[in-house]
């Protein structure tokens, strides 16, 4: 069934029913794991992955010191001598933290290219009032976050109240102002079907998302290739209709460079080379960086390094 949404300008918009065949999606998604990147192409892809990474820590146990260490790695992933050896590894795209730790990250990442992303709207459950969600966003932005990763209300979405989901995203987008990018987390692991994933993607894009993002990382499954494929197709459909490029961020579940290569190949084949940039594609991950760094060293030196060689926070 199509879904009717009253837009901010008063127009009644229909999001048409867009059936997804999950068997076909899984087959197509699996085909990207068969792509084989070698030599120079692989090294480029690995470095690109670092530049696309939102290095993340989202624990109740996060402390300012822990976030500082993470920021250190974000600015300079490899120690200088190894960095030189591999011809330079870029800093990551952003550090992603809880709102309370935004000021710490902002201080430590000043004068760098690394963005500060804050999860928001009562991450990860979104189960507070609309007012509190907005306050959450406003505070993070005022403390210097340049990217807001909000979660949609599954409470509203799953009971079919799409208007509330839409309105909330619109208000959050307003609260982001001109200073912050908005990434909208759909929490696909709780949406049940790929039809719903596509619907939620369209809803988020319609409401003004700069990026759509799969997961909080707190629910299993997080990002998967099939779910990401459906979201990329919604991004493509929107581009075909409007010419506007929306970003994509799979998060929670991408742990190895090999998996990440399949994601990059998928983005390249579904959306094209224009999306192979940190401004339109990100990996949300806490554990991916080390494997990517090891693979970079492996490509250049021919041997695998222990993580102890380049440190971890």
């Amino acid at each position, binding site marked *: 069934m199509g879904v009717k949404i009253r837009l901010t300008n008063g127009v009644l918009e229909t999001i048409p029913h*867009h*059936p*997804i*065949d999950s*068997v*076909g*999606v899984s*087959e*197509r998604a699996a085909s990207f794991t*068969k*792509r*084989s*990147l*070698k*030599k*120079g*192409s*692989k*090294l*480029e*892809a690995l*470095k*690109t992955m*670092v*530049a696309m990474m939102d290095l993340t820590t989202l624990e109740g146990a996060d402390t300012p010191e822990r976030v500082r260490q993470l920021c250190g790695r974000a600015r300079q992933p490899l120690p200088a001598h190894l960095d030189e050896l591999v*011809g*330079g*590894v*870029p*800093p*990551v*795209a952003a550090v992603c933290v809880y709102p309370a730790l935004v000021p710490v990250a902002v201080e430590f990442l000043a004068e760098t*290219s*690394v*963005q500060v992303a804050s999860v928001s709207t009562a991450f990860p459950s979104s189960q507070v009032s609309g007012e509190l969600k907005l306050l959450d966003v406003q505070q993070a932005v005022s403390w210097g976050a*340049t*990217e807001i990763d909000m979660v949609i209300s599954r409470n509203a979405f799953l009971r079919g109240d799409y208007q509330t989901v839409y309105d909330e995203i619109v208000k959050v987008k307003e609260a*982001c*102002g*001109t*200073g*912050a*990018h908005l990434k909208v987390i759909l929490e696909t692991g709780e949406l049940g079907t790929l039809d719903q994933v596509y619907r939620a993607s369209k809803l988020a894009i319609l409401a*003004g998302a*700069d990026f759509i993002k799969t997961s909080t990382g707190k629910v299993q499954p997080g990002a998967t290739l099939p779910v990401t494929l459906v979201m990329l*197709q919604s991004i493509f459909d929107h581009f*075909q209709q409007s010419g*506007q490029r929306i970003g994509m961020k799979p998060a929670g579940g991408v742990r190895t460079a090999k998996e990440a290569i399949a994601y*990059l190949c998928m983005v*390249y*084949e579904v959306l094209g*080379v224009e999306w*192979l*940039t*940190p*401004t339109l594609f990100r990996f949300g991950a806490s554990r991916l960086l080390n494997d990517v760094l090891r693979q970079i060293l492996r490509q250049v030196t021919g041997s695998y390094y222990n993580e102890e060689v380049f440190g971890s926070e």
Partner: protein
Amino acid sequence: MNRVETGKSTSKGSEGPSVWKGEFAPSMESSSTVKIRPRYGHYIAGGWVAPKAGRYFKTLNPATEEVLCEVAEGSEADVGSAVQAADRAYKDVWSKMSGAERGGYLFRMARLLQERAREFAVLETLDGGKPIKESRDFDLPSACNHLFYYAGWADKLEYAFGKRESRAWGVAGQIIPWNFPLLMAAWKIAPALACGNCVVLKPAETTPLTALLFAEIVEASGLPPGVVNIVTGAGPTGAALVRHPGVKKIAFTGSTEIGKLIAQNSAEFDKRLTLELGGKSAHIIFEDAPIDQAVEGVVQGIFFNQGHVCCAGSRLFVEESISTLFVEKLKRRMETLRVGPPLDKNTDLGAINSKEQLTKIQGLIQRGKEEGALYFETSCKLPDRGYFLRPALFERVSPSATIQREEIFGPVLTVSTFRTPEEAIQKANDTQYGLAAGVWSDKGAKLFEVSRRLKAGVVWANTYNKFDPCSPFGGYFESGWGREGGLHGLYPYREVL
């Protein structure tokens, strides 16, 4: 909607030289696992035999046009010795063996083939031009599955034929095509042996090598000499096999043209015939279909194995209300297909099997243009040597156009539109063939109704090109006689008393 740029400058990595732009460095499968001998004889009665007339022909790698080796050209006399060997093996050994014993040999062959799968996949790609991705992930696993499946039937035939007594025919002559050489050999050999027949197999002249390598599997399995014999050669060799009085059963997979000749030739003899022939299969997309998956299904349906597939979904029918959108998406997807060296693991379309086939496809493309259809091909670069074609489609195709009637057997799709389910069914059935069809819709009732009324041996709903040894395969009309695979695949190989 306004998209905001982030406050800070983009990271230095984003536009620097290290950004991956979708380049794929060559990722070649090693061919060092395969040893090709300079010259092959026939495999008869468990040994290698030189052709009696002393003539050989060359087999090429279609991706490089290099000669791989020489292969014996089978004469009537060679076919005669092979049939004699098979007949002797049948009378002396094979017909006296229990089904369980026969099944044991098939199980061993399946296991041995699995163990050497990589080697066979590489050889299949070298000799036939198909991408290594497909020979590795489709041809080899499917061939093994077929052997396993029929191994299981060998001692259970009484359940296949009900209460009726049945017996093997004796010697089966099997002629196979060049599009899935090893897989077709397995399709043919497995049910024949399970049912207690001995075989003389003739592989296609452009792709004989995996069948010849399969002789090593036959040998390693300990199969009694003469149960499986392999004679190589072109049309005349096949004709000799068809006309040989000692061959009681002929199984042929190939073109409709040759199939008709075989039917004529065998009419005057006491022979049973199964023919798996050409197709011009319809792929129907309704407006309520899962669009992106349907695009993918269409792409796999026509470009799998360079379109050298008898059941290729070569006639696309799209509901008019979505045809513009659908074709746009289809063309975009086609642009991402990688045509290149078949041994490269990233290659999606490999080489056209032979120069002859390349010329035939090019001729039909030319004909399509001349008859007024709108041609589109992708913009990818083709290798400098070898037989390659870009994936292509025709729009605005007349129902009477040559490209809409004749099987192209290459990476060329025709696109037409329809307005109602009734019209879709009528157009899909408007062909002398009837091998396969695909239907895409989110509505279950529509899928069942349309599938029921399509005159095709296989109808896939919301998918395409799915094969399973348990499932019978075969066509209507000029697509053939009889079924292969599954329980039905046993029937042609035994005489019911």
